[in-house]
């Protein structure tokens, strides 16, 4: 297993930014988050995991076309734009996964016949892209003040050929792994909201990955809390 380089946590001076100190047992890459950086959307966030960076903007609750409106809850739309090229089928499937996760968590019944749009732009992709998109979407929804019943985070695991588990893999590790699993968990009871897997793995390995994800999600949620406390301490 490759040793991750642990960098020191740096505090960014911009509004609402924060970076995480890494715990001894956790091999997540260095992550950082910045909120309220775009002026047009109602909420925006930029999430950085190692070298993977995603920018998210949330518009809502806003007007919705009559053809798309749902009479008793908000219509949630997710748009994911890759760094280069036109969005393709892979982006569409990721959009659907992120939308299903958000719909489980956002209280849409408080805003019927409105639309909540999450726009994600991939700034750089160096592995664990879906997890980074989920984290950016969650931070942007919180920044926009959309009512939610819980926070959620995404964690990616990679299993290589001799069964070693690597959390938050880089793109090189993802290519060489025999299975890559991405999970989304919520912060209330660490329940599983979404899982997306690719490759070959056994039942026991799946349980092992889930346990590792739930442990790693604590670090992510602690980082969310610190980041949000820093943002509100300035007011």
């Amino acid at each position, binding site marked *: 297993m490759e040793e991750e380089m642990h960098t020191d946590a740096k505090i960014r001076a911009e509004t609402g930014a924060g970076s995480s100190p890494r715990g001894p047992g956790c091999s997540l890459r260095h992550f950082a988050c910045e909120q309220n950086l775009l002026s047009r959307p109602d909420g925006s966030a930029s999430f950085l995991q190692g070298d993977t960076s995603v920018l998210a903007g949330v518009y809502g609750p*806003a007007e919705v076309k009559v053809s798309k409106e749902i009479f008793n809850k908000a219509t949630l739309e997710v748009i994911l734009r890759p760094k280069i090229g036109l969005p393709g089928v892979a982006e569409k499937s990721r959009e659907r996964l992120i939308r299903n996760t958000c719909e489980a968590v956002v209280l849409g019944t408080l*805003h019927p016949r409105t*639309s909540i749009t999450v726009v994600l732009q991939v700034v750089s992709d160096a592995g664990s892209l879906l997890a980074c998109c989920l984290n950016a979407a969650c931070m942007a929804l*919180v920044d926009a*003040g959309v*009512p939610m*019943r819980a926070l959620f985070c995404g964690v990616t695991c990679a299993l290589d050929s001799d069964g070693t588990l690597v959390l938050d893999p880089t793109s090189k590790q993802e290519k060489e792994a025999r299975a890559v699993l991405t999970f989304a968990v919520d912060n209330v009871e660490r329940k599983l909201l979404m899982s997306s897997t690719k490759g070959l793995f056994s039942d026991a390995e799946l349980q092992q990955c889930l346990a590792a994800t739930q442990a790693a999600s604590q670090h992510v949620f602690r980082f969310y*809390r610190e980041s949000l406390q820093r943002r*509100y301490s300035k007011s």
Partner: protein
Amino acid sequence: MAEAASVAAECLAGCRARGARSVLGQVVLPGEELLLPEQEDAEGPGGAGERPLSLNAGARSRVRVICGPGLRRCGDRLLVTKCGRLRHKEPGGGGGGVYWVDSQQKRYVPVKGDHVIGIVTAKSGDIFKVDVGGSEPASLSYLSFEGATKRNRPNVQVGDLIYGQFVVANKDMEPEMVCIDSCGRANGMGVIGQDGLLFKVTLGLIRKLLAPDCEIIQEVGKLYPLEIVFGMNGRIWVKAKTIQQTLILANILEACEHMTSDQRKQIFSRLAES
């Protein structure tokens, strides 16, 4: 599987509900559950002290607590739905008071009784459609102005600014606003006059500026003579004698959010000299 067991124990420990009183003034995150004060006493460890014997032993006395923005009732606890600082206001009469979450937001959601600034976007028959920044345009009847009758129609054109309040604003219906209070008087509401500048700020800043003891408005008033209208939907209309003064005032109010009071006083003193 010792790791799984320890992880499970940590998870359960993490989601134990905290008492609302102990978290006042702190940042709360969506998903947290808060216990109301009288439940805390019942469930707290060793609730010692004298308690009057109640005739029906099982029933707990219920204190009526109002759940404000950012909180929802979840069983007999409060569930936090927005991120922000938890606040509490003591009740005037009986009851448990109000709990709410102070969050920073840009998008406005219509609330009954709020005074807002809207822009007239369409005129269809007897109703004006007014854009208030929410998910739907609000409707304003032409009879909801002071002294308006079927013969004496108010002079409102598309593109005018209107200051009014909501009489109907809930999630299921289209919001309706009026420019008249319950006694039939305008009370400052109606069409906002010519010139001036309309700009948008966050909702938190508006609440801060409209707080009873806000020094910003008093200081701004000493600087230049001005007319100012605050809409709870994040819109401010300001008018001073010259365009330059109007723009300066608009910039100051927009920047107020991020400045500390010392920086603000510096800027005001610099402007007062020039």
